């Protein structure tokens, strides 16, 4: 029996298919990547037990929202869509601080049975109107 020894072995890694493999992986990651942004309405809650801030009563716009979605602005019933316009008017009326922020403080109070959706809609309109000082009152029991 003859032993056939191969003297010279061609040892080589094929690199021509590397690009294909890399492409495949690339496409996989491209497809699976979801760059989903977190989005929403930013708000900073007040500290608990913090000193009460005294505000001039005239600078407060009180928004009351009841469980059926009716909105009261300073004891006057207004339609939900009008909130932004009326708050905007009030901001202009009360003027601005030295740092350019509106003086008006918007207080939003809801009932415990109010839908979150309605609350967000009101908050959204207040934000759209440009109010920066927003106070969230605890819902009425």
């Amino acid at each position, binding site marked *: 029996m003859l032993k056939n020894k191969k003297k010279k072995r061609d040892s080589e890694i094929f*690199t021509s298919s*590397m*690009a294909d493999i*890399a*492409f495949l*992986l*690339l496409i996989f*990651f*491209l497809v*699976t*990547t*979801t*760059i989903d*942004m*977190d*989005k*929403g*309405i*930013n*708000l*900073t*809650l*007040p*500290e*608990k037990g913090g000193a009460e801030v005294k505000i001039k009563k005239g600078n407060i716009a009180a928004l009351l929202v009841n469980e059926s979605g009716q909105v009261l602005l300073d004891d006057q019933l207004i339609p939900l869509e009008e909130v932004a316009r009326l708050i905007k008017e009030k901001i202009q009326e009360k003027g601005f601080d030295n740092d350019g922020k509106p003086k008006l403080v918007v207080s939003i109070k*809801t*009932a*415990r*049975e*109010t*839908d*979150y*959706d309605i*609350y*967000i*809609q009101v*908050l*959204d309109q207040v*934000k*759209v109107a440009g109010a920066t000082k927003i106070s*969230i009152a*605890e*819902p009425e029991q």
Partner: protein
Amino acid sequence: MKFQRKQETKASIPTSSMPDIIFMLLIFFMVTTVFKEFRGLPILTPAARSTEKVEAKRNITYVWTDKNNRISVDDKIIPVSVVSDIIGEKFAANRRLIISLKIDKEVKMGMVSDIQEQLRDAYALRINYSTRFK
């Protein structure tokens, strides 16, 4: 004057560096890909016009609340009273914590307020109501 025409021009795109370019892209996508571990509870967030983007994704903790008033933080369904403990722990580890409230449209404000009170107890004051663009 005679115009000299170049008869043969060799036009070839060098492909030898192609794998390198692709690898670079590949590594970019590999690094940026974040596989979602958990999607939370099935909810429908409200739409708002003043929706903003939230920066610093790494500081975000989600608090899910579905329309059956179930609350979920970190994969676990928990009662409201425990929220402050869990968030408090997280806040101690990361002071720049932002709480993203993923609350269903149909949840009542009483529930939302209870959660907010819990967050205030935990000193996690930076919150974000998760909404969709209108």
